[in-house]
């Protein structure tokens, strides 16, 4: 580095601050001066200016002039700044209208001086306020003695009426018969041993409508799915399926079958017991579960155009669908939507989740909503892509 350097300090700062929100990679505070790559703007202008001098001295810049504008001079005590800068070498100032040229000729004989190190604070010295206790929700204890959480009551009662799966299963050749029992209730399944898929399932011994409703729901969740997926997630799906989503969630935090209602302990025990029995009767030991809920037959049969039309129509039917349109379908499950101008970011966030719920219920349970991505901003990678 040779030669005198002149810098408009306020422009440098403005460019720096702006670049923090406009530049992604290859950020440079530079103003064309490589030594400024080491400099970081500080909201305290005295520290900021001393930082520039430090970087310049390190890069063997012989002398520098910083042009300080009126806005900076209002915040900085020029006399104190001069005193602080004296450690770098000879300081000179020249007033030019509203601005001050602040010049330093570096003294190369002076040793490098570190920043002013403030007194070390003690860990936790600034006493934190009283710890906040975040609000809790009703605990499952409320629903342990045969009372059902009202969130599930209607769906459980409805399921209990069907009695589709309340039957004894018989062993069949080519299938593995697995079963488990709990308090006189038995869950049994016939599992196809090559893909480990449940192709028949049933239960016996239920004595209440709640048990019957839960087991009807559980069997419905299990049918056609791998036995491992049943053991891992059938009750998670069951809880979600039986819940009335128009009401507040059963707990304030993360909902699980275990914390939402004690009644889910029965299907959990039964289905896990069934998996254990299947493992005992076969060589099946895998815990690798990559089951992906397939799209429904009805949705599969539709053309892409028909799917888009149906989705758009459902969006328009929903009160939050105003100003939302389908951009494209990436896959039969993935829908990219756009918003009209003027819809705020926060509004978009909330609407997307509710519209997605509506589409899942009205059209196809596997649908997912996304918006158009902001593209990968890596110029080198994008250049490579465009050359391919």
């Amino acid at each position: 580095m040779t030669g005198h350097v002149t810098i408009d300090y306020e422009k440098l700062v403005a460019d720096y601050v702006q670049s923090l929100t406009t530049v992604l990679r290859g950020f440079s505070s530079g103003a064309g001066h490589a030594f400024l790559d080491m400099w970081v703007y500080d909201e305290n202008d005295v520290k900021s200016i001393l930082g520039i001098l430090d970087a310049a001295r390190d890069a063997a810049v012989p002398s520098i002039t910083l042009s300080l504008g009126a806005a900076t001079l209002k915040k900085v005590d020029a006399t104190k700044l001069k005193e602080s800068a004296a450690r770098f070498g000879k300081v000179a100032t020249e007033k030019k209208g509203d601005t001050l040229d602040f010049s330093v000729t570096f003294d190369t004989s002076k040793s490098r001086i570190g920043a002013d190190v403030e007194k070390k604070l003690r860990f936790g010295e600034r006493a934190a306020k009283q710890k906040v206790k975040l609000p809790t929700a009703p605990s499952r204890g409320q629903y342990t003695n045969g009372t059902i959480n009202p969130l599930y009551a209607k769906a459980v009662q409805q399921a209990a009426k069907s009695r589709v799966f309340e039957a004894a299963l018989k062993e069949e050749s080519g299938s593995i018969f697995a079963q488990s029992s709990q308090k006189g209730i038995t869950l049994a399944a016939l599992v196809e041993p090559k893909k480990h898929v449940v192709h028949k399932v049933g239960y016996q011994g239920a004595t209440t409508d709640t048990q019957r409703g839960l087991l009807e729901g559980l069997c419905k969740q299990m049918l056609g799915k791998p036995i491992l997926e049943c053991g891992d997630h059938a009750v998670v799906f069951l809880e979600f399926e039986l819940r009335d989503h128009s009401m507040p969630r059963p707990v304030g935090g993360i909902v699980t079958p275990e914390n939402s209602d004690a009644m889910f302990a029965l299907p959990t025990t039964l289905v896990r017991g069934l998996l254990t029995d299947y493992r005992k009767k076969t060589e099946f030991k895998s815990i690798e579960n990559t089951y992906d809920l397939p799209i429904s037959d009805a949705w599969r049969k539709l053309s892409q155009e028909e799917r888009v039309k149906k989705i758009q129509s459902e969006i328009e039917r929903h009160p939050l669908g105003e100003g939302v349109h389908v951009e494209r379908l990436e896959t039969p499950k993935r829908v990219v939507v756009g918003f009209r101008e003027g819809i705020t970011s926060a509004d978009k966030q909330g609407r997307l989740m509710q519209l997605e719920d509506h589409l899942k219920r009205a059209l196809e349970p596997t649908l997912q909503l996304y918006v158009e991505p902001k593209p990968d901003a890596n110029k080198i990678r994008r250049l490579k892509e465009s050359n391919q």
Partner: protein
Amino acid sequence: MSIRHTPHEEASVAHDHTDKLILDGTKIGWHLDRVRAWERGERFAPITIDMALTRACNYACFFCYAMLQENDRQVITTDVMYRFLDDCAEMGVKGISLVSDGESTLSPAFIPTIKRGYELGISMAVGTNAFVLNRAKLEDIMPYLTYLRVNFSAGTRDRYAQIMGVKAEWFDRVCQNIRDMMEIKHRDNLETTIGMQMVLMPQDHDQIMPYARLGKELRPDYAIIKHCSDNEDGSLGVDYSKYAEFYHILREAETLSDESYKVVVKWSKIKAKGGRSYQRCYGAPFLLQISGSGLVAPCGMLFNERYKKFHIGNIVEQSFKDIVMSDRYWEVMNYLASPKFDAQKMCGALCLQHKVNEYLDEYKKGRLELVEPTELPPMHQNFV
């Protein structure tokens, strides 16, 4: 240890919890109070927050995942951070790492944030390219840091410049800064752990040994070698099957470890080949990520505008305490834990929450028991 496996013949994915410094596992077993709160369905504050103070970076690494995470940017000032840190302390956030999404050292809020966080009793940590961390700044911040990790994805000058998108002489500057870190640490007997971290793309495996040797010369406490994360579309083109071709080089690099310098390969993630054993994401409320734009979203992989439905709020505009207490926050977290979400299909590979997710998923599936730890806590306990 806090984990006891239900006896059966199945191999478990949760392990490596006994090292003094856990670099390839999770420390969530030492935070069972939060795990119990989660189980009870309570709202609780994150244990650790991984965040950035800006999205800008003076480097341009080819593999940079954060470039895929673009969202609406706002300025995180020192005042914003002071309010945020006050909220964190009040709610019981235990550790904040200024790591992802951008180069936080470029922000004027960087040093004040570290000091204020420490003062409030929050463990503070930094992951950085360390280019601007000259001696003066290191003297200023090191006493307040639990760890300082330098991203350093090559072992030679020219390849450093090539892989990390900078001038070759920046390599020398950063090497000097690491030497200064170690000198300050030893001089002042600081507990701050100094690390180097290589994000390894399979095509850059020629740099494994030079990197491990360079580390041995600079002598940080450890030098990590880790996989590169990719998004759900595989935009970075990471071929996870390729890593197996140079396992022998990784093992050779490990042999350079000695009493005060460890070469650590993140085997569990490298061998996972980008796959996940779980479908629900339970880890985000425990280990939350905040973008350098101020955006609060469950994790970095969901920062992009594409994932708007998972975006919760912004610390520039709202109080963090209000965000964490909001229905919106728990609506998003519940989505991730529900049948609507499938981390195997809807996420990129090997996220920050991966090990926490493995642990909690095993527990939810009845394959783990939670037991109060009896051992001494590991180092950096507050960074789960």
